[in-house]
């Protein structure tokens, strides 16, 4: 792999840019690998990269039904933060945030991580108490999070309407300054390039149709549309389709797949300096480097794999956006799409061993998996390599639904997650 640098750009500028290599190779699958990861999104590609880099396991295949980064990695609103309430959540999301900070250098790929600040609006006394509880929990845990008055919130984000007569008045906000956004596609591409460089096979357009198991129940490999591929260890990182894939191995996971929608506006000049979220009226918004306002809506109430959602869900979010930021009332929306999120009963992810020997699962990231990409991938690689969860992900096990030791972020984080 040739390193990307200012000198490489200068050199290629002289040669009409004919010397750039393909970023990753797309080989035909071998008959067997040490590890197979199902799902080439950010989490799966990242896990393959860390397996190769930190654990020396390079005989790895990442199998993807569509194209890499084409699922939820390419459909989210790219918000990064770690201001969660419970230790288990703070552990993994903060681990992730720390990896985000050095990811571009690590991958030699500009993932455009921009710590522009994530501000969560408080509209009532309940919000205020809940956010202050988060802030105190975060600060005791060494994670930055601070309380802003409405005037300070307005100073941090000038388009915000803080009038007392507003439809959704604001009585303060919680701000995590290290939170922000990153370029979603670049994360998948960067991991794919770095993993491919270390010998990982990324096999796209190859659908897994079954998981073959041996006489003792252990995994032997996967049946795919390109034939059988053997492996003694399989990691499932299939987001909204995780329950479909796990069913192939006879494992039921407590997931509900729901469509989640997002939309972007026409490009505007830089006007919106941070990420703003409002759990209470359900709106979150930021501005991409291309200038589009990126707006996240809610999930539909029913299970679905349709990758689309109800118009009333978007309308509800845009109503809130227009009230919070009257300046955006006449902005035209350009595109809208849906992704399938895998939601657990406690709205916290599942990463751990399964009852099937050799089968590992990383799922349940629901509506907030993008921010966790590097941390989740890093700890998933540790899980697959060693067979036991890392200390930081130990609480996310599948067994918690039997023991009852849930991580109840649903109550803490409300809808935005």
């Amino acid at each position, binding site marked *: 792999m040739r390193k990307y640098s200012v000198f490489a750009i200068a050199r290629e500028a002289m040669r009409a840019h004919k010397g750039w290599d393909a970023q990753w190779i797309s080989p035909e699958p071998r008959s067997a690998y040490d590890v197979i990861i199902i799902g080439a999104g950010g989490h799966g590609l990242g896990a393959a990269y860390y397996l190769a880099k930190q654990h020396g396991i390079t005989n790895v295949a990442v199998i993807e039904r569509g194209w890499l980064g084409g699922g939820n990695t390419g459909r989210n609103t790219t918000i990064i933060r770690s201001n969660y309430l419970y230790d288990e959540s703070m552990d993994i999301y903060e681990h992730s945030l720390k990896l985000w900070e050095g990811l571009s250098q690590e991958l030699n790929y500009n993932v455009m991580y921009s710590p522009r600040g994530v501000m969560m609006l408080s509209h009532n006394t309940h919000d205020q108490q809940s956010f202050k509880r988060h802030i105190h929990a975060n600060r005791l845990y060494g994670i930055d999070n601070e309380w802003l008055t409405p005037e300070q919130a307005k100073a941090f984000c000038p388009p915000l309407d803080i009038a007392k007569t507003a439809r959704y008045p604001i009585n303060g906000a919680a701000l995590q300054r290290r939170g922000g956004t990153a370029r979603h596609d670049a994360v998948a591409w960067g991991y794919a390039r770095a993993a491919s460089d270390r010998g990982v096979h990324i096999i796209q357009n190859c659908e897994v149709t079954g998981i073959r198991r041996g006489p003792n129940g252990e995994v032997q490999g996967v049946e795919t549309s390109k034939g059988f591929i053997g492996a003694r260890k399989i990691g499932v990182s299939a987001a909204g389709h995780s329950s479909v894939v796990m069913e192939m191995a006879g494992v*039921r996971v407590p997931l*509900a797949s729901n469509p989640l929608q997002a939309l972007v506006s026409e490009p505007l000049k830089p006007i919106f300096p941070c990420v703003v979220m409002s759990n209470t009226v359900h709106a979150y918004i930021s501005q991409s480097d291309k200038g589009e306002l990126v707006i996240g809506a809610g999930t539909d109430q*029913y299970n*679905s794999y349709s990758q689309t959602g*109800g118009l*009333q869900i978007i309308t509800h979010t845009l109503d809130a956006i227009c009230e919070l930021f009257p300046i955006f009332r006449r902005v035209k929306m350009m595109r809208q799409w849906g992704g399938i999120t895998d939601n657990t009963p406690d709205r916290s992810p599942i990463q751990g061993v399964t009852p099937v020997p050799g089968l590992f699962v990383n799922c349940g990231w629901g509506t907030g998996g993008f921010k966790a990409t590097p941390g989740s991938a890093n700890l998933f690689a540790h899980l697959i390599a060693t067979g036991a969860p890392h200390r930081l992900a130990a609480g996310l096990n599948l067994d918690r639904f039997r023991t009852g030791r849930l991580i109840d972020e649903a109550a803490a984080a409300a809808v935005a997650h």
Partner: protein
Amino acid sequence: MLLIHCPYCEEDRSELEFRWAGEAHIARPDAISEISDEEFAEYFFLRNNEKGLTYERWRHMHGCGRFFNAARDTVSDRFLMTYKAGLPKQPIPVAEERAAAAEEKTVETWEATEGDAR
């Protein structure tokens, strides 16, 4: 937005009047204090989450207020039938099944969408 047929009101009404209420035909174990943790997790947390035909409950919240069951395709979101609560799992009428099969399924690969468009 979905258009849902309430089997009690016998009318097609907008999704806004309804609340989704999870998988249908899950019976609470009789001796719930005596079952094992595994059995409780199975009953309480594990759901089928099917891709394709699913049986689910809905409640006509802003109408008659009653729960009923529905069969729906989770890929196309097409309702195959709705029926009253308390009835056992109903077979899908043949005509509906054919119509659902003929209906174009949501395509998710680049080849299938962009390829066709070209």
